[in-house]
Structures are given as structure tokens and as C-alpha cells.
């Protein structure tokens, strides 16, 4: 274990990307993710890397596509309204089966919204962004250490499955400082026989492309891609269980909401309520099996989220609506308080009990 240092989440994430071998970053200024770009602009020139501030979010994501098509690790970062703009490129990345890492430090919306923390991009991210029939691997850090660890994971999974990985963070995770160990994570070598490296006049040209005008062929590609997604859903869900051994009220929360929920769970247990939490670390693939297993004992679920009831749908689907699922949410940049979550746990314990 290397010595722990104090770093802001956004900066730790950026340094982790560099440690993971990323030498190309393209971005566009937007609050509250600017530290990532600022950090990259300082570091990249010193390590022969590329930092480029693009003229738009669209240009940035397309520059990402350019580097990704050559098989190198590349990333961009933005915040919610900027991620909306990047959606076009996200769809092309999926259609071209290119690996890339996108960081979304979410802020409240819709529209221009505010600049305070939010989780309102949940649907957009977990449904693959873009214009449909594709997925991203969505990773939700809940500590500065995870901002580091999930960068390595994100690049690795992206290359392993030729998909885009998105780190779905928020202003709290980005701005907070915690002791963090900057340790090199797993870096695996994957087949890149698709990458554009120039033919050297020695091989047939390679084409990175998402256009396909033959319906039968395009359908075949889609089915094949979803076979791959199925493997991801089978093998890659990540989650943390907190005091779930005997839990009758199961909170589901990610990111900053999960941190608040831990305090609320501890307080609930002091009151004799058996509360616990499943914290999804991957939002796609969603840890469906863990939730459906929890539904065996838990009488009720609570979705704690900084959005208008988005993840709650995935919880209901995962447990096939076999238990009541309550919503505890604040939006617009407001973070639910420990007391609010506690009150919802108490309410859930009664709902569950009455069943």
C-alpha cells in the first residue's frame, strides 16, 4: 500500500487516468468538473501527453473517437449538460465498438440547471445515452479512493468489452478530499487487431465504422453486440453490502447518497430497525441478482437518490416489484439529510411490517 495523500476527487481521478496509461485528454470547460481539465492541462505536457481544450463538447468527444480508433487509452470529462451534447459521440463509440472513458461530474438539471451535485443523469447513462440500442459500463464512485480505483476498472472493462465506460460522479465526489492511496491498478493487454495504425503497406486496410445499410447485417451486429452486453451483465456487476446480514429495510443508493445512507442506517439500528444497504458500484450492469436475493429477507426497499425517481425503476425491475420500494430523494443540487433518510427508513419499516 503506497503512502496516503490528500487529494480532491477530481484530481485523484485525473492522476489515476495518467497512471493507467492515458495520454490523451480532450475536454471543454464546465462546472463542476473543471479540476479534471485543469489537472490534465498541467500534467500532460510534462509526460509527452496531449491535453486539448476543444471548441465544443461535440468536438471533444469526436477527438476521443479519433484517438480511440487508433487503439490508445483516451478520456474526456464533462458535466450533465455537456454530456447531453456528447451523446452523439457516445452512440458512435458504441456503433464502432470503441473503448473510451468518459467522466460525468453530474450537476442538477434539466436544461442549464444548477452547479450543485445531482444524480439526474442516471437514466441517460444507464440506458446508454445516444439514440438507443447501446450501453455503457457505468461506474459510480462513493469515495476519493474509488475515484482512483474505478478509473483503472473503467479503462480495463472498456478495452475488454470494446465499450465506453462512464464514471458517473457528482460535485461532492469531485470536490471532496479524502486520504487516497495512488496505487497502480490492473492493466491488461487485450486484442487490438481492429485499431487503425496505418497498414504499413503490409496488411489489408482496417475500417472503424458504424454505418451499415444492409438491415440484415445491421441486425446481426446488434444481436452480436448484445450477446457481449449479456456477458458484461453476467460477470461484471459490482456492489457493496452494508449491514445487510439481517436487514429488513434495504436501502439502495450510490455515490454521495450512499454515504449519507450509511449514517442513517447506523442511527436506524440504534432505534432497533434492521436496516442495511446495497450500494451499486456498477449502475450498468445493475446488480440485479444481489437485489433479488435481498428481497428474500427484506420487507421493503428505499431508493435514495438525487433525482426524480430514476434508479427506483431498476430496483423494482430487479425484485420484480415483489416488495414495496419507497423513494427518498432531493434534487436541484440539494443532498438529502441523514434525518430525511432515517425518516424514510422508519416509514419503510412500517410499510414492510404491515405486509
Amino acid at each position, binding site marked *: 500500500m503506497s503512502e496516503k495523500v490528500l487529494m480532491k476527487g477530481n484530481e485523484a481521478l485525473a492522476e489515476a487516468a495518467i497512471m493507467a496509461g492515458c495520454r490523451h485528454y480532450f475536454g471543454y470547460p464546465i462546472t463542476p468538473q473543471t479540476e479534471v481539465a485543469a489537472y490534465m492541462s498541467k500534467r500532460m505536457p510534462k509526460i509527452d501527453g496531449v491535453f486539448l481544450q476543444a*471548441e465544443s463538447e*461535440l468536438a471533444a468527444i*469526436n*477527438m476521443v473517437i479519433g484517438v480511440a480508433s487508433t487503439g490508445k487509452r483516451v478520456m474526456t470529462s464533462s458535466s450533465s449538460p455537456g454530456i447531453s451534447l456528447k451523446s452523439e459521440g457516445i452512440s458512435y463509440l458504441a456503433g464502432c465498438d470503441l473503448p473510451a472513458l468518459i467522466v460525468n461530474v453530474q450537476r442538477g438539471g434539466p436544461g442549464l440547471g444548477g452547479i450543485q451535485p445531482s444524480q439526474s443523469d442516471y437514466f441517460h447513462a444507464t440506458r446508454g445515452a445516444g439514440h438507443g440500442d447501446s450501453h455503457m459500463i457505468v461506474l459510480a464512485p462513493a469515495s476519493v479512493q474509488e475515484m482512483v480505483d474505478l478509473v483503472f476498472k473503467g479503462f480495463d472493462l472498456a478495452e475488454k468489452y470494446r465499450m465506453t465506460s462512464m464514471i458517473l460522479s457528482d460535485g461532492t465526489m469531485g470536490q471532496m478530499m479524502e486520504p487516497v492511496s495512488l496505487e497502480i491498478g490492473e492493466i491488461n493487454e487485450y486484442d487490438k487487431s481492429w485499431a*487503425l495504425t496505418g497498414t504499413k503497406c503490409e496488411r489489408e486496410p482496417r475500417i472503424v*465504422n458504424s454505418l451499415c445499410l444492409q438491415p440484415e447485417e445491421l441486425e446481426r451486429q446488434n444481436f452480436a453486440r448484445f450477446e457481449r452486453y449479456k456477458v458484461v451483465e453476467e460477470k461484471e456487476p459490482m456492489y457493496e453490502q452494508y449491514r445487510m446480514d439481517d436487514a429488513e429495510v434495504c436501502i439502495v443508493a450510490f455515490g454521495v447518497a450512499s454515504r449519507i445512507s450509511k449514517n442513517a442506517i447506523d442511527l436506524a439500528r440504534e432505534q432497533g430497525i434492521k436496516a442495511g444497504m446495497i450500494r451499486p458500484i456498477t449502475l450498468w450492469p445493475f446488480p440485479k441478482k444481489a437485489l433479488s436475493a435481498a428481497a428474500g429477507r427484506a420487507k421493503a426497499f428505499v431508493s435514495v437518490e438525487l433525482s426524480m425517481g430514476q434508479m427506483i425503476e431498476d430496483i423494482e425491475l430487479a425484485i420484480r416489484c415483489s416488495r414495496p420500494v419507497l423513494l427518498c430523494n432531493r434534487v436541484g443540487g440539494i443532498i438529502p439529510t441523514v434525518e430525511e433518510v432515517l425518516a424514510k427508513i422508519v416509514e419503510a419499516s412500517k410499510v414492510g411490517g404491515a405486509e
Partner: protein
Amino acid sequence: MMVFEKPKALTDNVMHYCPGCTHGIIHRLVAEAIDELGVRGRTIGVASVGCSVMSYNYFNVDMVQAAHGRAPAVATGVKRSDPNNIVFTYQGDGDLAAIGTAETVHSAARGENITVIFVNNAIYGMTGGQMAPTTLPGQITQTSPYGRDVKTVGYPVKVCEMLAQLDGAAYLERVAVNDVKNVRNAKRAIKKAFQNQIDGKGFSLIEVLSTCPTNWGLTPQKALEWLEENMMPYYPLGVYKDKEAQAND
């Protein structure tokens, strides 16, 4: 003995372009330039959206297909990934001068060391002949059925003239492929645009006035005449920027 051969930088695939369309000529000129400069093995092309969307099937080099208008941004990524790559985009007028204006302007402003082949035929071809940013005043298209009315939809974008204002652009020239003399001149310009990149001189764009017999509703021969009589007066041929020449002045 001179033997007329297909350039090595073109594949054997049969092109899908309409009879009389000049895309085929321009493809060939690009391929000849790549061959003659000996860079085929390290060239990566960026196809755009429009009639030339499937140019990835015709150039015998690694190719990536970009979203509408984004080719210069994708090319920026490919070039920055490895500056040894010779990177070109091949874009039409709707792609480059409407939906991709920002990418065009800013890659030029950055002096991005890439080569842009800009095919201007004053119409959206692939979608069936709609008004383009370069459609001439009064020109009839599917979406300007009474002729382009500048009072309501404004004026055409003159790309070379516009980009010439940018310090970042190294070389801008407008050429045409309507007759043998102009085709030979276009070849010279395109080759120079690639040579510039090899020499690290920065952003080069060649605007090629081209025909669209199908959507103009003309025979190939008449289309060539229409280009000369209507497009060339509005879009004068010539060099709009050449940093090197300016430096030598």
C-alpha cells in the same frame, strides 16, 4: 512506356457514385497524391457523412467514419494519437460548411496538421438534393423550390475566403474538376496539401468545385458547363492562403 494504372491507394471496390459525378475523379487525385508521396502505409482517412460516406470502401488505407460534420475533430484525435500518421478528411459541403462549421473553423484555427478535402457541389446529394450552405442564390433545390431566396435564407458560405482570415490555416486553395486543365491543377493542389502535412506545416484545405448531375437535374456534360458558368464566378478558383508563399514574399 507509360502504363495507366489504378492508384494503389484505391481499392478494387466498385464505387456507388452516380454516373457523371466527379467524386470518382477527386478520389483518384487523392489516391495518386498518397501513392506519389509514398505515405500509403501511414495514412489514415476520415470519411464524413454525405455521398462520400462510404469512401472508406474506396481508399486503400485505414479509415474511420465520422459523424456528420465531426470529421476534423476525429482527424484531430487520430493525428494527435500519433503525429506520424498522415491524416485526411474527405467532406462535402453540407458536412463541412453547415453542421460541421465549428469543427472546420477551429481545426483551422488550431493549425491542426491535417489535410482536408472539401468537395463543394452546392447541394446535399445523398439525402436527395436539398439546399446546402453553398447553394447559389436563386438555385432551385428540393428545399428551395422557388430558388434560394437570400432574403430569407441568407447567402452561401465561401469557405476558403472565410478560413483565410485565420492565422492558423497554412494553405487554402479552391480548384475545380470540370476540365482536364483544372483536374491537373487540382491534383497539384491536393498533393501540395498532403506534402504540407508531411512537412509539418499545418492545416491545409482544398476546396474542389464538383458536380451533381443527378440532383442538379442535368446531364453530366451539362453539369460541367453549369459548374463553369454558375459556380466558378461565385466561387473563384485560386490560392486563398499560402503561409509558405507569404513567408517568401
